[in-house]
């Protein structure tokens, strides 16, 4: 779908320097548009005030805030709007509340997709995947139609990586790099745990990496971590602690917080979302920030998966991946395990991706289909065939008829 030059010009987000020149009020930059979905939920509530106070995009940056909710969420959202008004924020140029995605995403520079379908009682993981894939497919389409040309989209709602993939697949005119799934929370948690173990300040810890999926299969990696500029593993010489305590604790920290608070970790998730967009927008120097971005094949990860890797954020919403880090055997195993989970997640929602009919099916799926068929396990054959494109379904039907 081609956009006209005129509409491109309207929605092209200018760089900070150019925008500064065009403002009438010399003190404040003309508004950037930020959309937040699920804005009436716990994370949204914790997030919007801090955005409005200028923590995310800078103290001189006016913001047009678009709050998006489902129909059911519009009433509490009005309460949030009242509170934002009562905050008397000088940087809030406007606040809009809507359940219309195209209206909400109109000309936005940053979208923070916090809202997602929660796991209901009796729901299988695959049901959760499918429910969310529908939501994020719609959001991808709306972003494709309405967002500014260089918009950046942060996906927070879980399963974040696969939701980002689905949204991106439904936004063919946007670069895959415009969609980022959040793993910054895991990185911050890992930094905090390492700092605690080493008795160091958390601000002196850096180069902690989160690889892979924002789930329990994530790999929090200390191989390159530093404390005060020194290699962390030369200070914390405790491999057992890393494998038996550090890694599982970071992976399961979400559950630990729920257990203590009786509610999920809204404030820290909001903090991480804010940190991610702030570092993208304002840059964070040479620091490595873990972000789940589309895999370009680096580290041997399947292309087209949203896989968390270390990135360097250069500001003005640009980033580059930190490539070709040496990976030891243990790390390779961990990185492959989380990649495998991401492949499974993608395959679970494959039938909801546009153009999946013409996409190749991965060899391991075909192999298991073949094996099940040869073993006469028709139940397994039907299970696998359910997820396949139409021509494969036809082939299976034919083969079964012939058998």
């Amino acid at each position, binding site marked *: 779908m081609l956009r006209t030059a005129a509409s491109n010009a309207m929605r092209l987000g200018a760089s900070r320097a150019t925008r500064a020149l065009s403002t009438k009020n010399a003190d404040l930059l003309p508004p950037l548009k930020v959309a937040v979905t699920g804005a*009436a939920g716990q994370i949204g*509530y*914790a997030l*919007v*005030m*801090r955005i409005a*106070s200028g*923590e995310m995009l800078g103290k001189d940056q006016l913001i047009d805030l678009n709050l998006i909710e489902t129909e059911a969420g519009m*009433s*509490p959202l*009005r*309460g*949030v709007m*009242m*509170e*934002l*008004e*009562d*905050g*008397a*924020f*000088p940087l*809030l*140029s406007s606040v809009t509340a809507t359940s219309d995605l195209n209206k909400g995403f109109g000309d936005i520079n940053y979208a923070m997709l916090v809202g997602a379908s929660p796991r209901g009682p009796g729901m299988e993981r695959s049901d959760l995947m499918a429910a969310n894939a529908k939501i994020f497919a719609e959001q991808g389409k709306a972003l494709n139609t309405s967002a500014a040309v260089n918009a950046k989209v942060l996906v927070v709602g879980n399963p974040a990586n696969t939701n980002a993939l689905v949204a991106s697949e439904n936004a063919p005119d946007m670069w895959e790099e415009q969609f980022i799934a959040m793993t910054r*929370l895991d*990185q*911050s*948690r890992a*930094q*905090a745990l390492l700092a*605690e173990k080493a008795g160091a*300040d*958390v*601000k002196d*810890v850096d180069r902690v990496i989160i690889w892979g999926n924002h789930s329990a299969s994530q790999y929090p990696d200390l191989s390159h971590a530093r404390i005060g500029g020194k290699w962390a593993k030369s200070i914390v010489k405790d491999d057992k602690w890393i494998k038996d305590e550090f890694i599982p604790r970071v992976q399961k*920290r979400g559950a*630990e*917080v*729920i*257990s*203590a*608070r*009786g*509610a999920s*970790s*809204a*404030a*820290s998730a*909001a*903090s*991480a979302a804010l*940190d991610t967009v702030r570092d993208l927008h304002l840059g964070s120097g040479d620091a490595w920030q873990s972000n789940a971005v589309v895999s370009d094949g680096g580290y041997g990860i399947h292309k087209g998966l949203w896989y968390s890797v270390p990135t360097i954020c250069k500001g003005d919403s640009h980033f580059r991946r930190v490539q070709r880090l040496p990976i030891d055997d243990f790390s390779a195993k961990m990185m492959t395990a989380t990649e495998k989970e991401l492949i499974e997640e993608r395959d679970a929602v494959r039938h909801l991706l546009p153009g999946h009919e013409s996409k190749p099916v991965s060899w391991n799926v075909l192999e298991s289909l073949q094996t099940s068929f040869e073993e006469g396990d028709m139940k397994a054959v039907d299970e696998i065939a359910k997820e396949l494109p139409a021509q494969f379904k036809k082939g299976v039907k034919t083969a079964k008829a012939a058998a």
Partner: protein
Amino acid sequence: MTVSPITVCVTGAAGQISYSLLSMLAAGSVFGPEQPVTLHLLEIPPALPALAGVVMELLDGAFPLLHSVTQTADPSVAFADADIAVLVGAFPRRAGMERKDLLEKNLPIFERQAHALNEHASKHVKVVVVGNPANTNAMVLAAFAPDIPRANISALTRLDHNRTMAQVAARLDVPVQSVAGVCIWGNHSSTQYPDITRATVDNVPVFDKLGGFEIVARDFIPTIQKRGAAVIKARGFSSALSAARAIANHLRSWVCGDEHIVSMAVPSDGSYGIKEGVFFSFPVRCMGDGVVEIVKGIEIDEFSKRYIDATAEELYAEREEALALLE
């Protein structure tokens, strides 16, 4: 150049308002990006597990300016060397409770905290009382913490002040930062007087544009007074976010100074005929480093005088009730 951390104690630390406030404190938006913060979090024993979860989340935020966090149910630990104390925790109003009952429940809490602050906090500690009834709780605190200069104790009316600014801005469709000249007089209760008689937008008086005395009395003032209830009705929960924002504003203005006139409930010095011995919200100038001056010499018209007298009467009555309960 390392700045030494300031110690901020927050009570009621596992509650909704604190949940919104603590991230702002840890992120450096209150005292500035160069000022590290040490947090001492106080809760009642039943809330300690929830507080542990809040502390986990603070650590998970990896805030560079958060120097350390202490969680405790012991006021002497919480207030130890505190430079700032934010007293959010209070006994909440239950259905059917009269003001006397609320006072009865809260006086012992603030008396205890006053002793602990007097004993353990820094000599220069600044205390902002948020928990209601805020003004009278502040008065009780001041009575039982004789070593803390009264000027270092205040109660929060900044939320009402912010709400007033926002309503003026909304009704005139102007940016909120162009509004000035508003203030809150009196008690942080339903008798508070949001005064917009001298309101300006870009230094142009707008009281007449807002409707003059009639409309203001009938519509504007009740809107501000009932805003809290309106938020509860819409959200289903009370206004934690805007309250936390107001606390942050109050602290920043108080400690770092403010070029604008703001509202704080401070010990009355007899200005505007308000008797000494109560904490009364006035328009104030914050000169920085905790120095606060009540704006003197404002001409109070008949209209405003009615409201100011009413809220003063309520505060005197609360004071009498408090003194009686303390006998």
